[in-house]
């Protein structure tokens, strides 16, 4: 019964979204009634979809195997947490989660957007309503999670064992909060284009939503990467796989949007570009959804896919993007460009940032879609692999990263590069000294790795120098500088934090790629293998059984160098009998930021095992940096300054201002 109620709630939300869209677009101009209606509709939709989602979750939790979805993706022996995550560990449920996040952002604008002008708000919610209608329609008509089975089987066929991991509890919701969160920026862009209200105030309203989505997406991608790293057992953390690119492209263009919106807000320039980016970013999210869900590209992360559903998503993609760009074409010519600025200025730096990020997005897009294009044109089947992305993306990131520390130092309108270099002198010296030390420590190798490290150090040093300069360290007394530091606007802090995190990630990426060591060897109990100063001895294996699996567990003893404690680590080869699926659970031990990664392989000879060992120096910095970046994003959301300065008496919503002032 609950399931039918949930189903009915989703149908109601679908119908309500259609009405909301119709009313909103028809009467947005100066009708307080329409505004109140779309507002209520947005909040009611959230309640309805939330109920539908809760009903589905309840059925999974209660092992209701009359629900087809639960039969296909759950099992009574799964631990409760995996029963719950099974809800979105499949196509239908994850699309419902998609809709839930769409309505969540709609409701958030309705609830917190009180300072928005009524017409703009009506349009934003109507546009969001249109997407809710499209995607809840998609769920209802092509991917309905609420179908029952009669007669109901006694047992389900279990969630794909690879997905039975805490990663599934965290990664998809975070990723969707980011990915789908950009829908609200898209709606803001559509609203701006229809109402013609494309000004600094618009940028101020759209920025907190961009920041929030961006920060969630950053966390979501990082979490997904770490999950793939420890769960898939290949020791890799990024594969330039289509599914990964699908979430990375919106991140890149979202990062560009974040920066261009600053220019639009502060200087009323780059208006066309910012609106364009807001459209592009969500379009890339939609494209990603299409790529992932249609299975049109071969991915190492295979999802159950269905070409007909893919076609429906493609059609929606075409309609949304086409519609938005048609609007854009109609309106953009009427826009006059705003504030003047010299090429060397904060504006100029942010334009360069946008240029490199957009070019990188385009590179990733081309690499992702090129196999499709070539196959359609010539029939040749190709893969664009990591080397392509390493070359193009790497080459575009190097100049961008070199420029990052300069940006926050440049003045608006007209900057002085000489003076900025002088203020960055400390950072430059620190970078050079540290880089030389690293270079010397490595024995002056003729590789790119030390250069990569130097770039990472430079970005981090630049971020610290930014804060130090703002607090006037060295120019005034210590005490005064400290109090200035405390008094800095949170947005200044958040810029520095996010940029610092970027540098941390760069260092992690360089170290993990350049300095990792790997051996594959066969070991008998009692034998020892040496890797990167660690000696790892194989203790033996035992049979163990978990709640819904049996496993062969290999135990290893790691003698670590330096002051690290020696510890045991286990790696398992599991079989999940319900589906007969084997998985490998890697054994991972963390030493500072580095990790030892042990993978237990096939039997070999008498009592022997093939064992794969990786030493991954500083690999944790990759994800730590991403978490710091996201932290910077969230921190800037707490800045109050702009709420006071907002044109209308802003109460809770307008908390914009990310970086710089």
């Amino acid at each position, binding site marked *: 019964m609950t399931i039918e109620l949930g189903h009915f709630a989703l149908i109601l939300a679908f119908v309500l979204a259609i009405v909301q869209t119709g009313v909103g677009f028809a009467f947005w101009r100066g009708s307080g009634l329409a505004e109140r209606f779309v507002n209520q509709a947005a909040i009611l939709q959230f309640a309805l979809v939330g109920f539908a989602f809760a009903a589905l979750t309840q059925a999974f939790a209660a092992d209701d195997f009359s629900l087809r979805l639960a039969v296909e993706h759950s099992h009574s022996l799964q631990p409760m947490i995996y029963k719950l995550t099974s809800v979105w560990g499949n196509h239908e449920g994850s699309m419902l989660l998609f809709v839930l996040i769409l309505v969540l952002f709609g409701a958030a604008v309705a609830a917190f957007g009180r300072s928005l002008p009524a017409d703009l708000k009506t349009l934003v919610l109507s546009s969001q309503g249109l997407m809710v209608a499209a995607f809840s329609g998609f769920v209802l008509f092509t991917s309905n999670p609420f179908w029952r089975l009669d007669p109901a089987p006694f047992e389900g066929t279990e969630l794909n064992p690879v997905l039975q991991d805490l990663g599934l509890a965290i990664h998809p919701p975070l990723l969707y909060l980011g990915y789908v969160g950009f829908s609200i920026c898209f709606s803001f862009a559509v609203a701006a284009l229809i109402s013609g209200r494309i000004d600094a105030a618009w940028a101020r309203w759209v920025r907190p939503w961009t920041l929030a989505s961006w920060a969630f997406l950053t966390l979501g991608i990082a979490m997904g990467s770490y999950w793939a790293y420890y769960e898939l057992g290949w020791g890799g953390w990024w594969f330039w796989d289509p599914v990964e690119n699908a979430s990375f492209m919106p991140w890149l263009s979202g990062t560009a949007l974040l920066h261009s919106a600053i220019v639009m807000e502060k200087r009323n320039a780059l208006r066309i570009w910012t609106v364009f980016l807001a459209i592009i970013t969500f379009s890339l999210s939609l494209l990603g959804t299409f790529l992932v869900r249609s299975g049109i590209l071969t991915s190492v992360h295979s999802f159950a896919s269905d070409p007909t559903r893919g076609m429906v998503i493609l059609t929606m993609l075409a309609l949304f993007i086409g519609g938005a760009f048609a609007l854009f074409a109609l309106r953009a010519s009427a826009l006059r460009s705003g504030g003047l600025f010299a090429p060397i200025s904060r504006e100029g730096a942010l334009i360069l940032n946008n240029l490199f990020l957009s070019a990188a997005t385009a590179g990733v897009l081309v690499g992702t879609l090129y196999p499709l294009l070539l196959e359609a044109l010539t029939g040749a089947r190709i893969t664009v692999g990591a*080397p392509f992305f390493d070359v193009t993306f790497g*080459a575009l990131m190097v100049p961008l990263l070199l420029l990052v520390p300069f940006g926050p130092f440049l003045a608006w309108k007209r900057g002085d590069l000489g003076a900025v270099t002088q203020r960055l002198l400390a950072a430059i010296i620190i970078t050079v000294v540290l880089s030389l030390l690293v270079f010397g420590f490595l024995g002056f190798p003729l590789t790119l790795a030390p250069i990569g490290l130097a770039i990472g150090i430079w970005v981090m040093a630049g971020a610290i120098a930014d804060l130090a300069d703002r607090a006037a360290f060295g120019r005034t007394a210590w005490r005064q500088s400290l109090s200035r530091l405390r008094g800095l606007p949170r947005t200044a802090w958040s810029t520095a934090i996010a940029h610092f995190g970027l540098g941390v990630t760069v260092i992690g990426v360089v170290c993990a790629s350049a300095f990792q060591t790997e051996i594959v060897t066969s070991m008998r109990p009692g034998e020892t293998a040496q890797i990167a100063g660690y000696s790892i001895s194989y203790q033996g294996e035992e049979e163990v059984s978990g709640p819904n699996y049996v496993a062969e567990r290999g135990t290893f003893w790691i003698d670590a160098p330096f002051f690290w404690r020696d510890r045991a680590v286990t790696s398992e*080869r599991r079989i999940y009998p319900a589906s007969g699926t084997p998985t490998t659970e890697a054994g991972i031990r963390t030493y500072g930021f580095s990790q030892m990664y042990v993978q237990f392989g096939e039997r070999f000879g008498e009592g022997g095992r093939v064992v794969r060992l990786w030493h991954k120096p500083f690999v944790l910095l990759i994800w730590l940096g991403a978490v710091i970046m996201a932290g910077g994003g969230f921190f800037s959301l707490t800045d109050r300054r702009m709420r006071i300065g907002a044109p209308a008496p802003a109460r809770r919503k307008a908390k914009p201002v990310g970086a710089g002032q």
Partner: protein
Amino acid sequence: MAWTRKQKRLGVIAGLGVILVLAAGLILTALRDQIVFFYSPSEIAEGEIAPGTPIRLGGLVLEGSWQQNGQDNVFVVHDGATEMTAHFTGILPDLFREGQGVVAEGSVQGDGSFLATNVLAKHDETYMPREVADSLRDQGVWQGEEG
């Protein structure tokens, strides 16, 4: 410098244009050099692929062909018409099975065998790599559902 507004804008646009052209050139060059073609054993048997060129080989693992000696694996990939021996050193993915689809990255050797540097893992055992499904359908071996 007393640049006019127009000159400044032109300068900025020219600068941006140069960067864009460089980026586009980079992407196109990399596309030419860095892509990896996918072949079935039959296509490789036609002999047009130079030994050493990185390619992807896809097909079914022949039943009873997988021999393992520690980390050294030898198996035969076939597409119904042609068979090809592949060597791989390392740990095969969990879902590597005889009789199932496989995609291996590597290159053809002088002796006509395939040396794999990477064998792709798939999450789902009912999953058939799309290229493998297509090429098997071309060879008439497999008539699984589309996609």
